[in-house]
């Protein structure tokens, strides 16, 4: 299925050579200031220009009256529009004269603003079409593209680079997902707030992400999907090439009333919507955390080939609740194969669990954790590994470092050892996953409770997500397995 909008038309939006901010303000509280500020501070390498009616300089950028005043040799692909709706038709015409082929509009007063706004929006779309300008928004919060170091948005933050492509019908969800990306280190390729989606809608962006070599997984927030059948066909085509994670707002009567007043989305039968997602191979998330963590897992872990999970833990209780979570899910708690049990027997005193979860029960020595992770992940019956217990030693190390005995003989040495060990365990989990092509997920509440702990910190430095609970690791893994099974049953790669 060919994308409705050819992917090369998005180049001007996501990889512009130069950017013009229209409607720049000298007041740091105004969108027209914030947009320019964010583009400049986050290091966009290309030329940045600005227009306003007041002239002068803002943040060192000389203000032009109009795009017509751009230097003759200026190469600008994207205009970021903060001007009032009434000014935009003339602005777009002037931009087109200077070769600008993409516009992101933050301007309000369009489709969300009654009949006159809808008429203005329709005229603007027709004009952009005629001028050959790709029009994103209006009434959107901006566009982010890490390969281009572009942070053209009126909200924060700028996320780390990575493989997640975000599109949202609600601008603040772009911000939410980027906040989560920044906190856990699993990064973003492109992010865009679709705003009123007058000309370019969520499925258009999804089709682009499907074709974008920088994007490994698409993550979308939607409230309404417009013409449902077309949405289904298009999202199914994207999901055939790339994981698509969807968070749908308005799944209950209460939520649907809220969505109707927010985006005007029509109520839909959630059983139909859910079936549609499954049929399209789309990963449907339950919550914001679930959506982001599913996307982050698709972006950083290989797909499991089957449902069988081995749990490696250094504490019994954690293993038990994780066994519960796996059993409740569509994954399977692997019955420990005899040869794997025998291999682990050689490395541990007999008090270990001798079953799955593989509870080391305190019998581990310096090299046990990496060795057991390796044995488990390499076993042909194991499709995925969940590893629990990272960071315990470094947690004690923090108390030592912060206590009044810090400096006493031996403390520094043991603290360094603890932190080295946790870093080693995190690295081993990532390395054995890469070597075997199997997902290995590390979970600890220290990911949230103390992200500076050497365990979660090192997981992050390996580019992977350190899950805040084993339940959430299992949930993310279940999403991966569901997609793997869908792809296997349909002969998709």
């Amino acid at each position, binding site marked *: 299925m060919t994308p409705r909008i050819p992917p090369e038309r998005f180049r001007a939006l996501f990889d512009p050579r130069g950017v013009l901010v229209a409607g720049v303000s000298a007041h740091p509280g105004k969108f027209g200031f914030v947009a320019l500020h964010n583009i400049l501070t986050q290091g966009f390498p290309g030329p940045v220009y600005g227009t306003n009616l007041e002239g002068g300089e803002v943040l060192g950028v000389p203000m032009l009256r109009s795009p017509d005043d751009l230097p003759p040799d200026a190469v600008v692909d994207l205009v970021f529009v903060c001007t009032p709706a009434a000014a935009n038709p003339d602005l777009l015409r002037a931009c087109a004269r200077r070769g600008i082929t993409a516009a992101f509009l933050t301007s309000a007063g369009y489709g969300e603003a009654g009949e006159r706004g809808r008429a203005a929006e329709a005229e603007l779309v027709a004009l952009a079409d005629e001028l050959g300008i790709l029009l994103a928004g209006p009434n959107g919060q901006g566009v982010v593209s890490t390969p281009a170091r572009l942070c053209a948005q009126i909200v924060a933050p700028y996320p780390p680079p990575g493989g997640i492509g975000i599109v949202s019908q609600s601008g603040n969800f772009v911000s939410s997902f980027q906040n989560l990306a920044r906190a856990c280190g699993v990064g973003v390729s492109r992010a865009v707030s679709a705003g009123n989606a007058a000309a370019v809608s969520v499925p258009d962006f999804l089709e682009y992400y499907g074709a974008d070599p920088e994007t490994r997984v698409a993550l979308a927030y939607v409230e309404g*999907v417009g*013409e*449902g*059948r077309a949405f*289904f066909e298009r999202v199914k085509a994207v999901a055939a090439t790339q994981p698509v994670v969807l968070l749908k707002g308005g799944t209950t009567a209460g939520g649907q009333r809220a969505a109707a007043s927010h985006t005007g989305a*029509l109520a*839909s*039968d959630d*059983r*139909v*919507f*859910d*079936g*549609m997602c*499954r*049929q399209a191979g789309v990963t449907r998330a339950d919550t914001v955390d679930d959506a982001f963590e599913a996307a982050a897992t698709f972006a950083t872990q290989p797909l499991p080939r089957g449902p069988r999970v081995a749990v490696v833990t250094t504490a019994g209780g954690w293993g038990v609740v994780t066994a519960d979570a796996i059993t409740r899910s569509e994954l399977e708690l692997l019955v420990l194969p005899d040869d794997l049990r025998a291999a682990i027997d050689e490395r541990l005193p007999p008090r270990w669990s001798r079953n799955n979860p593989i509870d080391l029960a305190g019998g581990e020595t310096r090299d046990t954790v990496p060795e057991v992770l390796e044995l488990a992940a390499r076993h042909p019956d194991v499709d995925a590994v969940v590893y629990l217990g990272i960071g315990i030693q470094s947690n004690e190390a923090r108390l030592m470092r912060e206590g009044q005995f810090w400096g006493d003989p031996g403390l520094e040495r043991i603290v360094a050892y603890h932190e080295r060990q946790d870093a080693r365990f995190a690295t081993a989990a990532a390395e054995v996953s890469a070597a075997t092509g199997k997902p290995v997920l590390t979970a600890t509440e220290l990911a949230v409770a103390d992200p500076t702990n050497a365990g979660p910190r090192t997981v992050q430095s390996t580019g992977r997500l350190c899950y805040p609970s084993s339940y959430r690791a299992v949930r993310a893994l279940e999403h991966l397995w569901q997609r793997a099974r869908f792809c296997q*049953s*349909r002969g998709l790669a």
Partner: protein
Amino acid sequence: MGRTLAEHESLALLRERGVPVVEEAVVDTPDAAAAAARSLGTPVVVKLTGPGVAHKTERGLVRLGLRSPAEAESAAAELLAAARPDDGPVRLVVAPMVRGARELIAGAHTDPQFGPCVMVGIGGILAEVVADVAVRLAPLDERDAHDMLDDLRAAAILGPVRGDPPVDRDRVAAVLLALSALIVEHPEVVSIDINPLVVVDGAPLAVDALVELRP
């Protein structure tokens, strides 16, 4: 609200499309009902049917467990007497009592946003409360039909249960594919409801159905 086909017309339409449907006789007199009971074998069920007859159970127009042709005959007479003028032309359906520990529901409808859809769920008199259903957009393929069965929270019901063999999933999938073809090929069909789709010896059997057409 469109017009609905009578139960026996609905079942006939499904039979034509290859859905296994309970064997039944449509008759007009108590005598004929007794004869039908004799040839089908008792016990039987006798129901009043007609394009205008709805809410059969609530109105007492379904007589179950009739053990002899004579019982069928007197039930038929009572049902004919219970018909109201607004029921329009009525007839009698005589069908064998079908027993199965497991009942499913299956159907198709047109969603205002996504168009024609096919549904399967756990049936029985509490089906609406249990609300365990899976939906796909039509047309669906065989893989989708099997996925729908896996989606049910009570999917375990499809396995071997209390001495009954497991449900033949391929046959249930075939019913869903038939519903898919029916609603896709016939835009005049608004909805189809098979309730119950009784599992007999592991195989699905449509015992009652309602097809609604555009006015």
